[in-house]
């Protein structure tokens, strides 16, 4: 009987520890710029054209992550502000925002919502989710690395940015076809711009920020 109670208690404790925790990706981590930048959440898009490969980026990434360290599963929503993506060439950025390309002027959000998470190995996950771009939603599979750190191991530099709780550092990479999202352009048909777009996201999410009640 004693053995049964001990085993049941251990199981209950395990179940309690196995609860998913919600972490937020905050704009607070997006404010530092330049050489003194400690870290800023970042999303990049990379495209191959006939005369160069260019990379667009934005630090305007928000969302929520739900992560269960014990069960090695979770979910969440990631929102990237596409309108704030810059490539280093103003004319190209303007072009990218038009209806002929990504239409960020009318559909500024790139949204990723998790459907299923599978632990691949250690901190690496295979995440299936719905990606919405230019108002079109398609299922994509992303390779995601999620690393948890308790608040005691968070560097002071991040605490100074207002990150006060435990953190999950998430990085992800996946590729999409522009044509799958209704982005069709003569330059793609002519092979001058690749139909493939590589996307990466690197964010820090926390369960507590300064200013939280």
């Amino acid at each position: 009987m004693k053995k049964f109670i001990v085993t049941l208690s251990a199981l209950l404790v395990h179940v309690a520890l196995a609860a998913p925790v919600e972490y937020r990706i905050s704009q607070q981590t997006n404010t530092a710029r330049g050489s003194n930048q400690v870290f800023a959440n970042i999303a990049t898009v990379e495209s191959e054209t006939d005369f160069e490969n260019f990379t667009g980026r934005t630090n305007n990434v928000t969302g929520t992550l739900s992560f269960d360290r014990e069960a090695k599963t979770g979910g969440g929503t990631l929102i990237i502000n596409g309108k704030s993506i810059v490539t280093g060439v103003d004319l190209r950025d303007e072009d990218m925002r038009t209806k002929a390309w990504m239409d960020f002027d009318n559909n500024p959000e790139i949204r990723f919502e998790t459907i299923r998470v599978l632990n691949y190995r250690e901190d690496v996950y295979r995440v299936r989710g719905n990606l919405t771009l230019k108002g079109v939603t398609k299922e994509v599979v992303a390779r995601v690395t999620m690393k948890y750190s308790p608040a005691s191991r968070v560097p002071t530099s991040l605490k100074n940015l207002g990150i006060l709780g435990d953190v999950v550092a998430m990085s992800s990479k996946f590729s999409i076809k522009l044509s799958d999202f209704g982005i069709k352009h003569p330059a793609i048909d002519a092979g001058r711009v690749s139909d493939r777009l590589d996307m990466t996201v690197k964010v820090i999410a926390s369960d507590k920020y300064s200013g939280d009640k």
Partner: protein
Amino acid sequence: MKAGQWQRVCRFLALLAVAVFVLSYPVTWFITRNGQLIQRVIPADASVSALFGDSGPGTPFGERGVYLIGDPAAFLEGTGAKGERFVSQTYLDEKGIYPLQTKTVWFFHFFVVLVSGVGALIFGVVWWSLNRRRGARSAPSL
């Protein structure tokens, strides 16, 4: 313009086109000779990189590529798995440097070769045709 003048102009343009065609190769080679395999990174605090399990100098920015970067201050310590050198994207942003890819240089070279090649062909044919006609006119009639 007289036929003789046209002939001289076409000869000049044909030879010019051939010169441009031929010289474009060593010029392009010269421009791209210092191209290096580079990985641009956004430098990050080592303690923050450790949260992600990263050991490199920062967050990779874009894929590796062959770039022409003349400012040595842009380079960071160390090399990557494929021998690529690391360049600080933050430094490039601060200095307003948009790094040139050798791919871009060779792309424009392709157009120079195409235009000069076609030009050499057209002007060459016109020159040859005018030359032939002139030769036929100067041949003594029987």
